[in-house]
Each structure stands twice: as structure tokens, then as C-alpha cells.
């Protein structure tokens, strides 16, 4: 249930405006509670009433409020947001409102408007001509942008736990290695199917351990079967995946036998050099050099991927974005439409992705180390749900549950 407090005043008794307001709320399946009412003592005195209106959904409430505004009943918190111009490129005004990752609305010129592309730790920029509000990171602010300041005229809607899909209820948010994993994975598989049917995208964020543990082929199968719509990773995952495709090793270890290959330590550098010589992963696939693996599956299936660099990268591959701000922006570009994020065996990329995800995106973090999931939640991605599991067994079970 969502609620709003409205006030109506004037000659609301004699003009039957108040009974009409109450009737309209009930006609639209809302409920009300009269919080207080002050009735004029003389005929010429005006009266005032404050009502708390409840409706089943945000949409139903908005409809009620729209109808009531015609009768002069307006939300008590009828304050517009306070906008201040950004003083410099890349700098918010001092009193800027710092966002959460929850659905947020701002009131501008008397109308509530939802903030587009919500993510945590950003500011809200409003276009004064259209009223369009957009969540903007500090680095992308332009001098003179109108930025929301203070907290007046801002409405943040908490997630309704009860309305989340059953797998999320089932798992709860606590991280524990002592949960029946087969059940969890079954339910997650059902959730992936439901997402796909609903036309929502599934984002996978994967670390190089996916390849090291030999579970690359499972992820490849997920991609080929259309269960991955966006892939975020780093130089490591792509490099070792390509290394395994070209040499059959990951960091020099043969994936089929688990033994170190002779002179295998330089395989990953040779893989990087090969891709660099061809100009990129897509070119390598097109030229027939890269014929299998996770990255090959992405190119073949047209699944967009964003590879973000880090300070300890070898190479990197030409596809890796080394400017972190550009990398963040590239990740943001891929977020619209994402309904579920599956983060597998990665700490840094999971946190980086968690930072830019709206809380409405269901987030599942799989790691052998419970601390990673805890850390994700501590950094603000509280919607994250943890599965403490070895990557290989998790992906094997998931592909089996999906009958792949």
C-alpha cells in the first residue's frame, strides 16, 4: 500500500467538495483517514481538512491524486524541488541531493516525475524546459546544469519485499553457506526463464575464476541458449577465455587435465598479442581465429559486452576500456531493460556494477567467499542475494536446471 497526505480547504462543507473528495477516493478503490478537520465557525469562515489516502499501487494513488487535484485537494508536501546551477564542470552545487538506488521521484512545477536511470551516489539533473529528471554522476555534470539540492520535493519509494519473486523470498537476503543449493539454483533457473519471458534482460558479471575453474563452457552454453543479454567483465576473464580457446589452458594450466602445460605461463600473453594483432575480439571471431569460448559466444550471438580495465591488467586486450569513467558510462548505457544481474566470482566488478544498478534490479551474487556478498551489501547494493558456492558447481547445476 502507498499513501499520501492531502489537504483541502475553503468552503468545502457547504459546497460538498469534501464529501465529493471522499466519494472519489472510494470510487477509485482508495481508502482514507481524516487526520484532522477544522470547520469554520461562521458561514463566511472557511474549513480545512487533512486526509491520509491509501491506494494499492503507486499508479492507483497517482490517479486518485490527479482526480483530487481538480477539486483542490493537494498533497501537503506540495513543495517543488530546489534547483541550483552546477558551479563548474564535474562539480555539484554544495547542497546537492545524493541519490540512493531506490526508485525516486521529484516534484517539479507541481508534478511528480520519476528520475531516469536511478543509481546510488549521484545527483539529479533537471531540464527546466521539459521537466525531465535524470540521475547523473558527478563526473558527467556540466557547468550550469540544474541540480536538485536539499531534500524537499523528493520522494523515494522503498522496495516492497513481499512483491519480489519467490526465489528472492525463499533465499532472503542473508548470506549463508548452509542453504540447500540445489533448491536455490532450481528457483533461480525458473527466475531466469520468467525474466526472459517478461522481455527483461539478464546481465552477467563474471570474473576470471569462471575460466580458471573450467566452468567457461557452462557460461558459453548459457550465452548460446539466450540466457545472457549483457556481459560485464574485465581483461582477465576475456584473456583467459581466449587463452583457453587458443591453447586449451588458463594461466598455463591445461583445463582438460588440470596440469601445467610446458611453457604455459606465456599463453595468456600470446593470446593477448594475437588479439591485439588482429585489432580486437570481434575481428578475431570474424577472421576465424577465435572459434570457441565465452567471448566467441558473445560475438556470435550478438550479446553486447563491456570489458573494463584495471591497474594490474596484462596487455590489455584492445576491447578493454581503460578509462574508468568511460567504462562506467559504457556499463550504464547497457543497463536499461536489465531485470536481473548475476554476478559470478568477481569482487571488484560486482561492486562496480552494484554501484550503478537501480535497487529494482534483482541481484544474485555467487562466490565461494561469503565476504564478497556481504561486502556488496555493505556498499549499498542491499538488494543483492548471495549464493555461497564454487563457481564450477554453481554453473554446472544452473545449466542442468535449465536443461542445457
Amino acid at each position: 500500500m502507498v499513501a499520501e497526505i492531502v489537504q483541502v480547504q475553503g468552503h468545502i462543507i457547504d459546497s460538498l467538495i469534501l464529501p465529493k473528495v471522499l466519494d472519489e477516493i472510494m470510487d477509485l478503490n482508495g481508502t482514507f483517514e481524516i487526520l484532522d478537520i477544522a470547520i469554520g465557525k461562521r458561514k463566511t469562515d472557511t474549513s480545512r481538512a487533512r486526509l491520509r489516502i491509501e491506494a494499492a499501487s503507486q499508479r492507483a494513488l497517482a490517479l486518485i491524486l490527479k482526480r483530487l487535484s481538480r477539486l483542490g485537494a493537494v498533497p501537503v508536501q506540495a513543495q517543488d524541488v530546489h534547483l541550483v546551477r552546477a558551479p563548474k564542470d564535474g562539480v555539484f552545487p554544495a547542497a546537492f541531493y545524493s541519490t540512493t538506488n531506490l526508485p525516486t521521484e521529484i516534484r517539479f512545477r507541481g508534478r511528480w516525475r520519476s528520475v531516469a536511470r536511478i543509481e546510488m551516489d549521484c545527483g539529479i539533473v533537471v531540464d527546466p524546459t521539459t521537466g525531465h529528471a535524470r540521475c547523473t554522476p558527478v563526473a558527467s555534470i556540466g557547468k550550469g546544469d540544474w541540480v536538485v539540492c536539499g531534500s524537499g520535493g523528493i520522494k523515494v519509494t522503498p522496495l516492497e519485499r513481499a512483491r519480489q519473486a519467490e526465489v528472492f523470498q525463499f533465499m532472503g537476503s542473508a548470506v549463508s553457506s548452509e542453504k540447500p543449493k540445489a533448491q536455490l539454483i532450481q528457483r533461480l533457473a525458473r527466475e531466469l526463464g520468467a525474466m526472459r519471458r517478461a522481455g527483461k534482460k539478464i546481465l552477467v558479471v563474471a570474473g576470471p575464476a569462471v575460466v580458471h575453474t573450467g566452468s567457461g563452457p557452462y557460461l558459453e552454453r548459457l550465452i548460446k541458449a539466450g540466457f545472457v543479454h549483457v556481459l560485464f567483465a574485465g581483461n582477465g576473464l576475456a584473456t583467459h577465455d581466449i587463452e583457453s580457446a587458443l591453447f586449451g589452458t588458463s594461466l598455463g594450466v591445461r583445463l582438460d587435465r588440470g596440469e601445467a602445460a610446458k611453457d604455459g605461463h606465456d599463453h595468456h600473453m600470446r593470446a593477448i598479442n594475437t588479439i591485439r594483432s588482429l585489432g580486437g575480439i570481434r575481428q578475431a571471431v570474424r577472421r576465424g581465429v577465435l572459434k570457441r569460448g565465452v567471448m566467441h559466444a558473445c560475438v556470435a550471438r550478438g550479446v553486447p559486452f563491456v570489458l573494463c580495465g584495471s591497474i594490474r591488467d596484462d596487455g590489455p586486450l584492445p576491447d578493454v576500456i581503460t578509462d574508468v569513467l568511460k567504462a562506467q558510462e559504457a556499463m550504464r548505457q547497457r543497463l536499461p531493460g536489465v531485470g536481473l544481474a548475476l554476478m559470478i566470482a568477481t569482487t571488484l566488478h560486482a561492486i562496480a556494477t552494484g554501484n550503478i544498478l537501480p535497487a529494482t534490479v534483482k541481484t544474485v551474487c555467487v562466490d565461494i567467499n561469503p565476504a564478497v556478498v556481504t561486502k556488496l551489501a555493505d556498499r549499498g547494493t542491499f538488494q543483492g542475494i548471495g549464493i555461497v558456492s564454487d563457481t564450477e558447481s554453481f554453473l554446472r547445476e544452473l545449466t542442468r536446471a535449465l536443461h542445457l
Partner: protein
Amino acid sequence: MSPVSRLPSPAFLMCQPTHYAIAYEINPWMSLKRQAHPATARAQWAALHRLLTRTLGARIRLLPAKPGVPDLVFTANAGLVHGRTLIRSNFRYPQRQQEEPIIERYFHRAGFRVVRLTSRYDFEGEGDALWMGPTLVVGFRFRSDAPVHEELARWLRARVLPVELADRRFYHLDTCFCPVDDRTALWFPRAFDRYGRKVIASVAADPLAVSERDATRFACNAIVIGRAIVLQAGFSTALTRQLERRGLRPYPVELSEFLKAGGAAKCLVLRL
């Protein structure tokens, strides 16, 4: 009683239809395909002016006509006059918002205090606000907003009752409601919603409902001066009988050119 009606002879503001035309469509009556005939409009207006001044002894002040604001002729919408104060209209449509500065300047020069209401709410003057005895009835939805009633009540220190209009054809209160005296009012009940009907019934002890045919001939858009009632010609004999039974004398006027813009007798005058 409103202070104005205590004056010995009633005074009105009118505006000559020099630049009157159908220049846009902002109500269901207006159609760019059905243009007003300028010479006929001028003659009809002059006949109304003559009737009000010569026959009924009203004092008329003239608001100078201006090109580009054809609806300035409908002075009833300029605002609401209360003593020497004008509560200026906030027109809903941009086409008519251009009239606001002209009206304001005229009233300033004429020595009135001009009051502006909160700009976020629309209010179209006497078109949507009529005194019924000590109570001001305000129509809302199509041209005025309900919340203005609270501000009006504060300015006027009177009871102001908003009623919702329900029929787009009767977009102003003065097209479907006409107070005659403290008890009697002409009205077209179906132009109001059920709450509005109850409110009108509570303020008018003797409501005189007109037929749909009379209502669409703008019978409610009438000017009342004492026991004389000036209204668009062509109303039914039944209405004539009902008016006469109440001691009222109807004066029919032909204003067909103004009906094309959705206005008749009452729309052409503002009580001063």
C-alpha cells in the same frame, strides 16, 4: 447582498465588437468555418447597448477594443468587480491570456484596485462567479480551477461555493446559471454534476430549470436589472410564462453573431 447591487442604477462594462471575429476554437460552439458577420455583430451589439442604456437605464462604461484580442468583447470574463476592486481573471487559454494586461491597464486608469490571484490557478471572472444573495457561486472544471474559491473567499470575506460543471457546452457558469434575486435563479440542471445540483438547490429557494432547447439558446446567459431580464431571443413560451409568473419581464435581444463564439447577453457585460 453584493455591494454592487445596492447602487441606484446598475453599471456595466462593455466593449465594442470592432475587432470581434472567430479567430480560434476554444469551446464547442466556436468553429473557424462559421465566421461572425462583422456588420451584423456590430448592429446586434448596438441594439443591446441601446436597450440597456435607454430602456433599462443602466450606465455603461466602454473598454476600448483592441485588434488581436477578438474575445475582449466578452467583458464578463475580465474579472470580478467588488466595490472598487477588480479581481482579475487568469485565463485558461493563451489566446485569451493576452487580454489580461489590457484589462489590468484599463481598470488601473479607471481608479480600481486590481487584485491578481495565484497564477497557478485559472479563474475566468464573472463568467464563472455569480452572486446568489450573499453567496458567491463559482463554476469550475472547464475554465476555472476549484482551488480559487478559497482565495476568493479570503478577498471577499464571503461564502464562496465551488460547483463542478459537467457539460462541455456550458463551459462557464454564466451559460447555465443566472441568479435573478435572493430566491430565484435560472439554471440548466444537467450542466452540473450531482453535487453541484445539490449546492444550487441549497442556495436558490426557487430554482427555475430551463429546457435543454432554451439552455442551448443561452437562456441562462441573461442580464438581470431589477425585474427586467435581457436574454437571447427565441426562448420558449413556457419560459416566458414562468418568468412572468415570478413578476419578471423578459426583453429578447438577437445576438446570433455572438452565439457563434459561445456567448450571449450576459457574456457581453461585466457588472461594475
